[in-house]
């Protein structure tokens, strides 16, 4: 277990060292490229005055709510589309069109309609999560072997039994693959919403740092976002390890 982390740790150290040397000897001013140490000090300050935990909690709430709403809708709609070719024909032009519009282009609209509070960010986050989870749900459900349907039908199984005993477990690997993409995208969704207009959240903190030439603060916000994305990714990987043991 520990052996796996040694290369990661080494590359991280090399990165920090390279960064530190660059700020020391290149002559780039601190407000353009802050040194690792100044970022660390800024991080400690933001922790102790409570601003970082508070803004992180708000962004995390937006992400988690957005993920729940996005994944829920995507799974239900995806299942219905997988089961009905005619419904897919009717809806797919809209779904593809919705993907052709960058979320960043409609984010200001959503903030106008839904206000600059948490709701608009949750919706933007859900929108960005929706598509990859939807596509993978459709692919996963369509890939269920027909022989397993024959088996269940020969046993006179109900629709619900086929759903929970065959379709759900059989499509889980592909579904979780979509969730993995969706989870990392959800961070982008929340930040895009916050950058348009917000009173709080890591996006707000990032913008505040930018306006005040508090570049170390911008770095702290960026690193916190990376940590959030990695954490979500890790949770999905944990789910995969737990539920897909039969695969490897």
């Amino acid at each position, binding site marked *: 277990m520990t052996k796996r982390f040694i290369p990661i740790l080494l590359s991280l150290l090399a990165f920090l060292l390279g960064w530190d040397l660059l700020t020391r000897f290149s002559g780039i001013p601190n407000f353009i490229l802050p040194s690792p140490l100044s970022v660390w000090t800024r991080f400690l300050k933001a922790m102790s005055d409570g601003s970082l935990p508070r803004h992180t909690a708000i962004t995390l709430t937006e992400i988690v709510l957005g993920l729940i709403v996005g994944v829920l809708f995507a799974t239900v709609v995806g299942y219905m589309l997988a089961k009905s070719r005619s419904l897919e024909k009717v809806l797919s032009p809209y779904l593809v069109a919705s993907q052709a519009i960058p979320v960043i282009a409609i984010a200001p609209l959503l903030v106008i309609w839904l206000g600059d509070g948490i709701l608009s960010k949750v919706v933007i986050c859900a929108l960005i999560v929706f598509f990859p989870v939807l596509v993978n749900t459709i692919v996963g459900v369509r890939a269920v072997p027909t022989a397993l349907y*024959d*088996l269940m*039908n*020969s*046993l006179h199984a109900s629709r619900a*039994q086929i759903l929970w005993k065959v379709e759900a477990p*059989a499509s889980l690997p592909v579904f979780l693959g979509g969730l993995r993409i969706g989870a990392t995208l959800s961070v982008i969704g929340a930040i895009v919403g916050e950058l348009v207009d917000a009173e709080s959240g890591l996006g707000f903190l990032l913008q505040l740092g930018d306006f005040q030439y508090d570049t170390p603060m911008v770095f702290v916000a960026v690193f916190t976002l990376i940590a959030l994305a990695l954490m979500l990714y890790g949770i999905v990987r944990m789910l995969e390890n737990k539920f897909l043991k039969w695969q490897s």
Partner: protein
Amino acid sequence: MPHTSIFTIRNLSAVFQNDNGGLCALENISFDVKPREFVCVLGPSGSGKTTLLRILAGLIPPTSGSFTFGRGEEPSIGMVFQQATLMPWRTVTENIKLPLEVKKIDEAVARKKTKEMIELVGLTGFEDSLPRDLSGGMAQRVAIARALIHDPDLLLLDEPFASLDAMTRERMWTELSNIWQARQKTVIMVTHSINESLFLADRVLVLTQRPGKIKMDMEVDLPRPRKDEIRYTSRFGKLAKRLRGAIE
């Protein structure tokens, strides 16, 4: 003796729509099955054997004709397919238990019955193995156990040994024969192997090339229980020759 039959099949026909109008797979099939009779349906590939079995299992409706079980009740069915069709995420025990779960049998009873079935098909020691770790013969034994566990009225076998190597296949004949002796089910089995049908069946129906019609209905009067040596007797040879002559 129509009054002793448990399964009556009358004028069954199946036509599939294709680009040239219609493809007639089965034409006017009629036969009766007695309780606890082992009937083999023998025919060349493309004679509609599998279609016949799928109709009898209720997986597809016939184009015309009818089939009645008992006094008209819906029979419970155990089915074994050409491939083992196991759920890769379920262990041997969980795969065998599936029909009892579908029929919502009490968990404690289900566990006990599953244990008995595992012993009957000789899979003791592999209770918690996943399908990926089983050989072809073992996987097919799981499938047979699963088809028998809910004590079905009718056992339908669709070339269950077609995907196994010759040695395993012949060993499975003896095992299936023993299991059938122990459980005394009404069986309809589809095969294209003359030896297989003679070794296992009480009666062999020979189908013609497409569209499948019954060409021959032959009693197999070989003594039971049948041992491997029976295949080298002159009686077996004579019956095999008659079947060979009936198949185009």
